[in-house]
């Protein structure tokens, strides 16, 4: 925790930036209106509230298997939590940082491949694979961020470069022998906590839950920390943030590394859950799309957006399967349609719906 003094200076800075940013996009709009002392309590109150909300969600979800009896239900929630993890990872860079990546599969695939290669070629237990995979994701995030942001890539160009990076990794993984090339890699079935493989669905459920909660908690920390304030300032107006002495490049690189770390954990989970990876599965564009869709649907740059989005999408795709039968292409097409509709009509996502309704109501009263 920061002492109140330092918080005040950060909020003061961010709210002065708010003036030049598009209204309502910054995280500090409320504090800007109500003055600084209130802002400090709001900031601390926000942290506590986030912790409490996340804790409550964690407890509910941890007890959920007592109610969810069928494997079908358990799998449904497990995969939604896995999707939450990917979304929360992407949200750190894309939501809080405003840098849209179209190639988050890079980190996902790296995590999965590093873990798989260690397990297959060196025979290490999966938890070491997880640590190494996550470390690879962090390193790749730092490297990718450093190259892109040092050269001043912004907006659409950043999206294109990340996309091209994912393609490069896919092609390499498809061509070199130690990744099993196009055939892919299969890991041994060895159940146990250290091997992160479980006989019952519940084991995977709790693994996914822990990973998703960690990712959401990191998001909550970013949202309420000094680092997050700097990140939001850079997102809303990079030049103004620089003028105030924020090292914008460093902040963005750190966000990319953090985001890559969590995304790589998603890749390792995928490996342990499905036991098999190949270049198109883990470096392909559908992973990147899944990562960005959740937060956009749930609410960009919000703590719970990835969770809301992931569960909403899982529900939609379940209903679609029910109505249309097993047609994976059609449900993917539906995802695309949802993306278009969300960006067009609900740019703040489902999480922003409440705010929109309140705004409308207030406008109605004023009129």
């Amino acid at each position, binding site marked *: 925790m920061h002492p109140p003094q330092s918080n005040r200076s950060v909020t003061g800075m961010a709210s002065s930036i708010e003036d030049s940013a598009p209204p309502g996009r910054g995280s500090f709009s409320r504090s800007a209106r109500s003055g600084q002392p209130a802002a400090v309590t709001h900031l601390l109150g926000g942290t506590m509230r986030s912790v409490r909300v996340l804790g409550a969600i964690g407890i509910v979800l941890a007890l959920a298997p007592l109610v969810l009896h069928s494997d079908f239900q358990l799998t449904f929630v497990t995969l939604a939590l896995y999707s939450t993890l990917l979304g929360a990872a992407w949200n750190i860079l894309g939501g809080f940082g405003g840098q849209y990546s179209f190639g988050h599969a890079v980190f996902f695939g790296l995590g999965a491949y590093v873990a798989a290669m260690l397990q297959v070629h060196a025979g290490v237990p999966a938890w070491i694979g997880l640590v190494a995979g996550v470390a690879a994701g962090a390193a790749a995030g730092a490297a990718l961020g450093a190259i892109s942001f040092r050269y001043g890539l912004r907006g659409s160009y950043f999206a294109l470069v990340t996309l091209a990076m994912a393609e490069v990794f896919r092609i390499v993984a498809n*061509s070199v022998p130690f990744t099993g090339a196009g055939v892919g890699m299969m890991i041994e079935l060895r159940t146990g906590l250290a091997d992160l493989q479980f006989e019952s669905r519940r084991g995977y459920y709790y693994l996914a839950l822990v990973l998703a909660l960690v990712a959401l908690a990191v998001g909550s920390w970013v949202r309420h920390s000094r680092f997050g304030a700097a990140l939001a300032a850079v997102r809303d107006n990079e030049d103004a943030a620089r003028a105030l002495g924020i090292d914008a490049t460093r902040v963005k690189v750190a966000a990319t590394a953090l985001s890559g770390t969590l995304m790589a954990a998603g890749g390792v989970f995928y490996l342990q859950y499905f036991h098999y990876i190949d270049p198109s599965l883990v470096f392909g564009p559908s992973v990147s799309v899944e990562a960005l869709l959740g937060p956009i649907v749930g609410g960009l740059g919000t703590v719970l957006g990835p969770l809301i989005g992931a569960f909403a999408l899982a529900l939609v795709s379940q209903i679609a399967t029910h109505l249309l039968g097993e047609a994976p292409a059609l449900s993917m*097409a539906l995802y695309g349609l949802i993306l278009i509709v969300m*960006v067009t009509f609900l740019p703040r996502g489902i999480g922003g719906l409440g705010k929109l309704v309140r705004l409308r109501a207030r406008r109605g009263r004023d009129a």
Partner: protein
Amino acid sequence: MIDGALIGAALWPALVNGLTMGAIYALIALGLTLIYGVLHIINFAHGSLLMVALYAVLVLFERLGLDPYAALVVLVPGMFALGYALQRFVINPARHGRDENTLLVTLGLSIVIENLASHFFKTDTRQIETAYTFMMVDVAGATIAMPRLLACVGALVSCLVLAVLMRYTDLGRAIRAVAREAQGARVVGIDVEHVFAMSFAIGLACLGAAACFLLPAYYVSPQVGHGFVLVAFTVVVLGGMGSFTGSLVGGLLVGVIESLGGLLLGESLGQIGVFVVFIAILLLRPSGLFGHKA
């Protein structure tokens, strides 16, 4: 290791083949760069829209026996109309003043189109066979397939037509005015929204033409756009976003890079060359070879 002499002998045909493919890339990229130059948006669905056009040519050929080159009369106006409608009713309403939104919407569009195509056409690769499919032509010692040569010539002619259109017609002048200064264009009475939609429409009409020239020499599958979208972006950033000459030169260059990459590194790893060029250009010279400073 690959024999040096063998490479020497294969170099010229690879170069010619790369140039013919490059002309097609140039035409595709020309549409993309026109859209970027005028609307300042990146059309991520460019590849999937090319795929739509390719399937249209395929269906016209298989169902009605329409020759791919004759299909130009249908495809160019058809894609033009599609482009006008897409920009007016889908892409523009989603923009909300942020370029990233356009990127997301066109990404969504490409997901929808591609998956609908895999649902209806299944995922297999399809080709067409015409009387001239297997004809070979000798170009200064390099033997290339007749459809490839025709594709190259057709693409270059299309580029020329577009250049003339942009230079000498009222529409072309209006488009250039809007690209330079949209607000000023509005002041002198140009309907900017209309010009935006027209530019998008012309960009897609380029895809319609490219599809007609491409299909006899290539194939179509629901994922075919994937390969083209990044290649087209590479061409565009290589030549400089919004630059016409840049697209043409960039297209030919990328065709050659790809062809030589395949020759030197093998089919699978060879594709990497284009992406490496793409990343390097974006990092080191984002304004491209012919572009103005961004």
